[in-house]
């Protein structure tokens, strides 16, 4: 039993010109059996900060609940939203707290920071942060995602082109993974609006 391959997931985030996109698949399975085909893996922390959680679904949900709790407290005390960089450090520290009994999740964090500069990062299940300027990936389909993003990505894409690119990268990668798929969930975030779209993919 591979704990990271119990539920199955694929999450990816990409940076564009003054915008970012974050996408995930929609499958929830118990090993090979598909249980749900509209399972949410990307959560909103605030309107310019998103977190996608791949890995064990129960840990992803619990971790999300803890993070929302911490962010709400922060908002009450600081009277402002958290910056993405700060949030990433918070996630990292919460994960490392459980160093010897970790949450089996690999988060992907994407947000617009100061001056609406796009920020993305990923980390492993014990909080090792990986910052990137172009794209980050996570989940059972991560290796396919690396390949797809590396070849399809180019810098400074406008929101519409970014949407196309991240969608194609996601769909082609999950098609090579037994445990992820059943369509996609894509958020494209600019300083002024958030566009949420559902992709129709192979249902196998």
């Amino acid at each position, binding site marked *: 039993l591979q704990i990271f*391959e119990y539920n*199955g997931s694929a999450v990816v985030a990409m940076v564009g010109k003054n915008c970012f996109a974050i996408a995930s698949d929609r499958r929830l*399975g118990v*090993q*090979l*059996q*598909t249980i749900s085909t509209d399972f949410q893996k990307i959560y909103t922390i605030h309107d310019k900060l998103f977190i996608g959680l791949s890995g064990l679904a129960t840990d992803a949900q619990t971790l999300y609940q803890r993070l929302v709790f911490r962010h709400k407290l922060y908002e009450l005390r600081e009277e402002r939203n958290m910056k993405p960089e700060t949030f990433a450090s918070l996630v990292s520290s919460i994960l490392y707290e459980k160093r010897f009994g970790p949450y089996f999740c690999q988060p992907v964090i994407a947000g617009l920071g100061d001056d609406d500069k796009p920020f993305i990062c990923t980390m492993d299940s014990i909080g090792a942060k990986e910052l990137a300027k172009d794209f980050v990936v996570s989940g*059972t389909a991560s*290796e*396919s995602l690396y390949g797809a993003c590396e070849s399809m990505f180019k810098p400074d894409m406008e929101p519409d082109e970014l949407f196309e690119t991240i969608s194609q990268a996601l769909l082609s990668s999950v*098609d*090579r*993974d*037994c*445990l992820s798929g059943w369509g996609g969930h894509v958020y494209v975030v600019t300083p002024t609006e958030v566009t949420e779209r559902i992709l129709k993919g*192979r*249902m*196998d």
Partner: protein
Amino acid sequence: ITMDDLNAPHSMGTTIIGVSYDGGVVLGADSRTSTGVYVANRASDKITELTDNVYVCRSGSAADSQIVSDYVRLYLHQHIIQLGQPATVKSAANVVRLLSYGNKNFLQTGLIVGGWDKYEGGKIYSIPLGGTILEQPFAIGGSGSSYLYGFFDQAWKEGMTREEAEKLVVKAVSLAIARDGASGGVVRTITVPNDRYVRFF
């Protein structure tokens, strides 16, 4: 996925089906071959020809099922040369069974043999792990078949026409592909209406 997975033996977590109708048989399968959770081939062909009039659906270990099919093809062709007429589905299935049963400790493959001969018409033989041989009006196998037992209980009936049988097979494989992570890709079917010619879809 890890390096272990990429070098793991290819397995065809699969859905395979054989349904006999009035005048022949329809065989169906998905097209996904996986190594661990990576999809090694998304357009594989799991329905293999043994003779002009007998086909086999393969599931389980890709290597094991391929080698068994190859040996069966060899032995059947030799048998046909001696016999002087097309092989019966029963003899083809029994050759498969002899190999599966005789090498049961080494093999991990479940097979469904289906075809048409002039003595018995359309017949389906199921040969699961271990080498049991079972003649059935319809057979399902592979990891995706778990999701189809209830469906077949409800949807299968005796004396179907060719069109009904083909539709049933396609629908069933599609349903299993939807639920089973180890099945996917396209639905391949083969209809064997008699020993003269065979149709591919």
